């Protein structure tokens, strides 16, 4: 084998502009030497604000606009990024982009079923499938899939979201076995109720009664876990789903 040339290492966070994704970018800037690739779909301002915080913390990175649900766009943006960064490797992939379109199953429209599957499940495929060969060649990598307590126990009103996240959990376990030999770990993180745009409309006062820790979690708390999984310290953990939910599911 040829001697390995040291490449510039990047961590890609999809849906990195806001909420948990943004907190992950900031935590990785604090804890690691990775340059950040902050993916966003529509909110460039929020993505820019995240990048500025990363830079304030002494990190660096760039914005990458694409919709994870659009395979063609994902491939074209990531391929051209690699074309322009031949000395770089995306070593950490955090599949965080997700959407919800909640409704009782009996009222659920086909498009709301499909769009949630497209972003949360197919988005994982589109991004990870594009990057996996390069990770295999790199012989080291971290893939972290943001799932949800919904994907484990199911949540009423979220059959689409629960199905998508449950599928990603299964894919996490399968892919982990495929690539483990090359020191690539694949894990899933399953947050419960976390304060973010996604949970803005929920009644925290009412819901926290069912959470043993008696409050919603903070995005930073999730980011700490992701940062650990993204580090070399987590090297013997793969194919796992790690709950972070204040004790609601065990």
């Amino acid at each position, binding site marked *: *084998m*040829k001697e390995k040339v040291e490449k510039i290492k990047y961590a890609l966070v999809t849906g990195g502009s806001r909420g948990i994704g943004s907190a992950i970018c900031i935590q990785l800037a604090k804890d690691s030497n990775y340059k950040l690739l902050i993916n966003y779909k529509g909110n460039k301002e929020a993505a820019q604000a995240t990048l500025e915080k990363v830079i304030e913390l002494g990190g660096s990175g760039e914005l990458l606009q694409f919709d994870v649900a659009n395979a063609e766009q994902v491939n074209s943006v990531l391929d051209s990024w690699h074309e322009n960064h031949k000395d770089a490797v995306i070593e950490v992939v955090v599949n965080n982009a997700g959407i919800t379109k909640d409704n009782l199953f009996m009222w659920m429209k086909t498009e709301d079923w499909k769009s949630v599957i497209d972003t949360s499940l197919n988005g994982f495929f589109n991004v990870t499938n594009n990057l996996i*060969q390069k990770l295999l060649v790199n012989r080291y990598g971290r893939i972290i899939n943001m799932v949800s307590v919904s994907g484990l126990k199911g949540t009423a009103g979220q059959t689409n979201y629960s199905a998508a996240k449950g599928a990603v959990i299964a894919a996490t376990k399968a892919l982990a076995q495929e690539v483990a030999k*090359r020191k690539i770990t694949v894990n899933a993180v399953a947050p419960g109720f976390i304060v973010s745009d996604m949970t803005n409309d929920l009644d925290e006062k009412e819901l926290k009664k069912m959470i043993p820790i008696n409050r919603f979690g903070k995005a930073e708390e999730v980011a700490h876990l992701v940062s650990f999984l993204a580090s070399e310290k987590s090297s013997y953990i793969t194919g796992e789903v790690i709950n972070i939910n204040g004790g609601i599911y065990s």
Partner: protein
Amino acid sequence: MMDKEEIIKKTNEFLIDEFEVDEEDICPNANLKETLELDSLDYVDLVVSVESNFNVKLNADDFAEIETLQDFYDVIEKKLN
């Protein structure tokens, strides 16, 4: 256009250099997977080597046609021309 001999020479060179194959083990009828001691994930290295040497990208369907080194040269030639 690259002629067959050139393809074979170049391929053998990277097989020896990058995949640590002994020169005497290289013959057209040799089984590619066994000669290179490839496991399923190792094919990715072969894809990368072929791409960097010939600027063509092999996919899973191409490998389905390949059993021997001769097949391997043939597929590269087909892709190139």
